[in-house]
């Protein structure tokens, strides 16, 4: 019950953020270089045609009226029509979305499969070979530009070894390279968080108690260390997936993976400002929702935080 109340309150509190984000996107598009009506009409159009489009789009009205209008169409789920494709923006987004979701999930699974064991082992055995390899992985992830990793992978696996395709999404094999590229970036972060939260859990008093009680090492690690360490790890994983929906932009572009990230870049080059505006808003919405979900899950799995929330709501 309290959890539901917390959820409602959390959603309520994100409304000002959402309005702020809408206003920000609205302003960004309005200061865009070039007159949107002229862009739609094309360079050879007559001034009166441009004027007609301007009136059609409502661009001749005062800014605050335009903003209220914008918000009310968004509330009706109407993201406008793409200038380039002539189709509703929301259709374009929903058509590309599954690709981005699949890519994000596969990348996250790879990252977790590598990062969790490495992070835990390197926390348990500092100064060992494993811990050495782990720190290299997390450093490379944090310091290498993903577009460059992508190109190196293409060079090695597509150009030299001819093992994997370098662009498109026609077969399951096409996902391998983009997923690895994305997962390398995630891995670094995740190993670091895993390592530090396991170290922190190891140093807590209740683990000391468990050891003092004479429990076996394995039992202590599984039941007392990992259970505690998992809380921050799960949080980071949630945030990563949220970030990926926006952050896969570069990887998707390099591999021509047809997700919403590469759609955004296409829209930028077509100067399709209605599509740009729609995609950015969509990504922000997803990001806000995921942040709320992560907060609620976090509150749910951590009894200490749950208690604080009990008292607050």
């Amino acid at each position: 019950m309290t959890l539901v109340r917390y959820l409602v309150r959390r959603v309520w509190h994100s409304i000002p953020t959402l309005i702020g984000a809408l206003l920000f996107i609205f302003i960004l598009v309005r200061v865009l270089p070039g007159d949107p009506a002229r862009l739609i009409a094309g360079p050879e159009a007559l001034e009166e045609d441009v004027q007609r489009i301007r009136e059609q789009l409502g661009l001749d009205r005062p800014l605050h009226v335009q903003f209220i209008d914008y918000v009310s169409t968004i509330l009706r789920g109407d993201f406008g029509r793409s200038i380039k494709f002539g189709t509703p923006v929301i259709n374009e987004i929903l058509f590309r979305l599954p690709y981005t979701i699949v890519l994000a999930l596969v990348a996250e699974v790879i990252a977790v499969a590598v990062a969790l064991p490495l992070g835990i082992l390197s926390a348990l055995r500092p100064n060992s070979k494993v811990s050495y390899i782990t720190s290299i992985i997390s450093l490379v992830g944090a310091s290498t530009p993903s577009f460059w990793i992508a190109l190196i992978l293409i060079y090695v696996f597509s150009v030299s070894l001819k093992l994997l395709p370098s662009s498109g999404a026609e077969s399951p094999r096409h996902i391998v390279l983009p997923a690895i590229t994305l997962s390398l970036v995630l891995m670094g972060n995740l190993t670091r968080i895993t390592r530090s939260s396991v170290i922190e859990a190891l140093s807590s008093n209740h683990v000391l108690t468990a050891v003092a009680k004479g429990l076996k090492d394995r039992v202590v690690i599984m039941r007392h260390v990992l259970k505690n360490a998992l809380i921050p790890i799960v949080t980071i994983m949630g945030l990563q997936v949220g970030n990926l929906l926006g952050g896969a932009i570069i990887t998707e572009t390099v591999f021509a993976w047809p997700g919403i990230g590469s759609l955004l870049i296409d829209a930028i080059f077509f100067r399709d400002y209605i599509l740009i505006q729609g995609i950015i808003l969509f990504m922000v919405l997803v990001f806000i929702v995921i942040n709320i979900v992560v907060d609620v899950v976090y509150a749910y799995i951590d009894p200490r935080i749950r208690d604080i929330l009990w008292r607050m709501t």
Partner: protein
Amino acid sequence: MEDDLILKKASEARRKQLASMWRVFKSNRVAYTSLYVLVGILLLVVVSFVYTPYNPYEFNLGRARQPPSPQHLLGTDELGRDILSRLMVGGRYTIGISFISVLLGSLIGSILGLVSGFFGGHVDTVIQRVVDVALAFPTTLLAIALMVSLGPGVLSLIMAISISTFPVYTRLVRGVVLQVINEDYIAAVKLLGRSSWYIIFKHVLPNVISPIIVQTSYYLGFSILLASALGFLGLGIPPPTPEWGSMVSTGRVYLFSSPHIVVFPGLFITVTALSFNLIGDGLRDALDPKSRMFLRRF
């Protein structure tokens, strides 16, 4: 008189503290080496103002896409321009822009955080709402959106990256201020009738300096990646300016026959970002006694 003595002692203590921090930093061999590597790269960039092996802008199609050789240490690009010369000049943009924008971002973000945490009330609410909005955007997306809106160019890049980095500083500094402000010594200074700004600068600021420095070092690495990613996407500085990210981008067409055009700019980006991150780790251990104790325990 007594005041003077106290100040003198305080400054001596601070000097000793700094010296001990430097010792800790120096004892971290990886971080110390990274500092040298970074200085080396910066030297290359600085030297580019007076000397480059070749003119970084001059075409020479007869010598296009040559692999590394004694004449061209890192080879030539698709238009026969010397890659080393271009990387030296490009560093001014990639590193320079990252430096300025993170500096701006940290300055604005920290000031907002200080004000927000110290004064509270409506000021705090307004600042925090703005930060909420900025944090509602994934960082890369925010930077891309700003670049689209501001148009390509050095100034736009600086604005885009500093706007993308300031909110984290505001949160960080506000958090530390809220912690410090309830300490007894702040209450004591308030009783002495000192002004708010005096308290902020003398007693609150010193507490937030080290987390800011550590965060800045990490963010320098990150903003090198961000600036070059924007360049790679064609949203940064228009050609023929040899920004590192856009150099990788133009080379990708020739990945099959001349991979070196892509490899070297990418290596420069990686090594620079890596040095900043490693120096950040070293600084964190040197500046934060808590994490040092932590590390010693394990």
